[in-house]
């Protein structure tokens, strides 16, 4: 191996080292994304009288708490019935105004989920270090940068100093070769990866996704993959920048223009991992063998091909796993051995920072067109921009004619913060990223899947292999 061979991660990391002390590195942060939930950060800034070092490097989005019901949206912030939720939305406005931070909030044309609207604005660029006050910040690594989620203390540190202390993680390369089969999506690939390596499988590692399947993916698909890196415990998830990346970025509001674009492009082209660069760990996936996936349990590694059956804990040799399976089945109220396609759903949610981009909406609409929803089904675009694009293509009408509800942009039913939530015991087919207990509301039950699979579940009222529907 050439000693100078570096991975993409190494190149970006080494380019951001301000200082090293003991085993920790003080890394420079190019961009910090926040949302209404960042109230604890501002509380600390106030208590301690701290200033924001570079307000122009901090970007705020209204997403977690904003209502997605179009009528509530039209009525305005003052009409949000829960005073604590309203307070969170208002605090973002007053706090960002106080410190001169750009905000994409209620009523703004660019409002949306920070991991959907941020990339649309061109904020996520190759080679940068980007942090966000949300664990799914790994999404932005799809552009070939180091992006990761941080807590409120670290956010306070970043906005006060423009830096963050980090221990260097290991590097894990996941190579995904082969062609995706009919009806198989980026979501199925990442669920298959997490099923293979486990929810703790990438703890302590930064992932680089590579291989022919990744090469062929659109930026939206790459973002879906990188988004769920955290569900395998990964520090970050990166994809090498290439022409697909540059085409996506070119012309976006925060993308470099003119001569600066040419300079940036020349630099970005130096970033991909060098041939022969050494990774601490390697995993490979054959994309051609992946089929549409659904989760059956209470964490994202508990997933199976839709053609499979609910696992029988009695067949599980590992005692600890057997206990986990039993607990998960009890919470999910499922019988061992039942076909996954026998699982009836009460609701369907198409949205979240994993699957609410235009490609996702199109994929769901293509299935919705084939019938009529038999259970309440929501489509929540990830940003106002996605919403406008979908409406320009007439997709909103496809959904409403098929009995789906077309809503405003936000996190909505993924995280149950804005009032959109499941009732106890309700079961939801969801395109989001976490099927943890109570994630979509106390007592709620979540099955994760792709947008096409979720739309298919809405038409049938139970989990179904979308390939059967689409073939007919």
């Amino acid at each position, binding site marked *: 191996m050439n000693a100078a061979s570096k991975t993409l991660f190494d190149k970006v990391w080494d380019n951001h080292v301000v200082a090293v002390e003991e085993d920790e590195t003080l890394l420079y942060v190019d961009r910090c994304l926040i949302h209404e939930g960042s109230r604890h950060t501002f509380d600390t800034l106030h208590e301690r009288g701290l200033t924001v070092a570079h307000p122009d490097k901090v970007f705020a989005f209204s997403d977690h708490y904003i209502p997605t019901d179009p009528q509530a949206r039209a009525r305005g912030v003052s009409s949000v019935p829960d005073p604590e939720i309203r307070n969170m939305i208002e605090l973002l406005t007053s706090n960002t105004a106080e410190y001169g931070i750009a905000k994409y909030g209620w009523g703004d044309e660019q409002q949306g989920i920070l991991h959907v609207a941020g990339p649309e604005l061109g904020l996520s660029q190759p080679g940068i270090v980007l942090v966000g006050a949300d664990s799914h910040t790994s999404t932005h690594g799809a552009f070939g940068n180091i992006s990761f989620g941080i807590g409120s203390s670290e956010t306070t540190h970043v906005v006060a100093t423009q830096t963050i202390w980090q221990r260097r993680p290991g590097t894990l390369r996941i190579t995904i070769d082969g062609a995706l089969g009919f009806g198989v999506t980026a979501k199925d690939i990442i669920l298959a990866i997490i099923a293979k390596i486990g929810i703790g499988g990438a703890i302590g590692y930064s992932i680089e996704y590579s291989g022919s399947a990744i090469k062929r993916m659109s930026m939206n698909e790459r973002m879906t993959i990188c988004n769920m890196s955290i569900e395998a415990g990964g520090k970050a998830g990166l994809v090498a920048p290439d022409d697909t990346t540059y085409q996506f970025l070119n012309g976006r509001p*925060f993308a470099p223009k003119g001569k600066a674009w040419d300079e940036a492009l020349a630099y970005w082209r130096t970033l991909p991992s060098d041939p022969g660069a050494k990774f601490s760990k390697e995993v490979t996936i054959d994309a051609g063998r992946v089929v549409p996936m659904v989760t059956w349990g209470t964490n994202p590694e508990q997933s199976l091909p839709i053609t499979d059956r609910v696992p029988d804990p009695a067949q599980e040799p590992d005692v*600890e796993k057997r206990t986990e399976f039993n607990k998960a089945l009890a919470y999910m109220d499922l019988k061992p051995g039942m076909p996954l396609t026998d699982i009836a759903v009460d609701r369907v949610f198409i949205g979240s920072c994993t699957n609410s981009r235009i490609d996702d909406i199109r994929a769901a609409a293509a299935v919705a067109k084939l019938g009529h929803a038999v259970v309440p089904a929501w489509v929540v675009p990830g940003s106002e921009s996605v919403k406008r694009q979908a409406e320009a293509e007439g997709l909103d009408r496809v959904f409403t004619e098929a009995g789906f509800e077309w809503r405003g942009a936000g996190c909505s039913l993924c995280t149950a913060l804005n009032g959109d939530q499941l009732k106890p015991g309700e079961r939801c087919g969801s395109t989001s990223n976490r099927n943890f207990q109570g994630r979509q509301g106390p007592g709620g039950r979540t099955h994760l899947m792709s947008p096409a699979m979720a739309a298919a579940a809405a038409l049938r009222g139970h989990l179904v292999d979308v390939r059967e529907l689409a073939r007919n």
Partner: protein
Amino acid sequence: MDAFTTLTGIAVPLSEANIDTNQICPTRFNKVPRGPRFAQVLLHDRRFNADGSEKPDFILNQEPYRKAVIAVAGRNFGVGSSRETAVFGIITFGIRAVIAPNFGDIFFSNSLKNGMLPVRLPAETVDLLMQQLLNERGAQMTVDLSSQTVTGPDGKTYHFDVEPLSKKRLLKGLDEIEHTLEYGDAIKRFEQGHAKAQPWLVS
């Protein structure tokens, strides 16, 4: 931040894997300002029924575990969301150290920033300690940061690794932002070089 030196007291066995941050702090409590209310937030939906009454079966609702200061848990503790409210819940309840085979990365960092010590021990050691705690209700343990040891109910000590800078900060309760601001000149110099190398990032 409160310093962490040595801690002795009741250790509660949370005998399961994958206790994610959604369970530790259900999302709807993220909007609560930091304060005493967080003692109730910890593992809320596991501890309380929908009407607010306690679930008597849950271990934290039983004596003497209401006074636990240490928790021993299964693998992947704190995976999931970046919510620091998960750490607020644990600390406000009174627990200052969690021992597990591994932790969600963001939760691990969040703990250190709040004077809560996440201790990584090999899975076999955690199993052993868990068994002892399950066999002897209310058993005490000690976590000593300066010697980097955990003392189990049986009196045996186990070494754990901790990053030197984190150890220094925790032992003295150092404020990280003040510490970083001492690097002010280095940050300025970096910014100038960075702006020259990648001018398109300067808006």
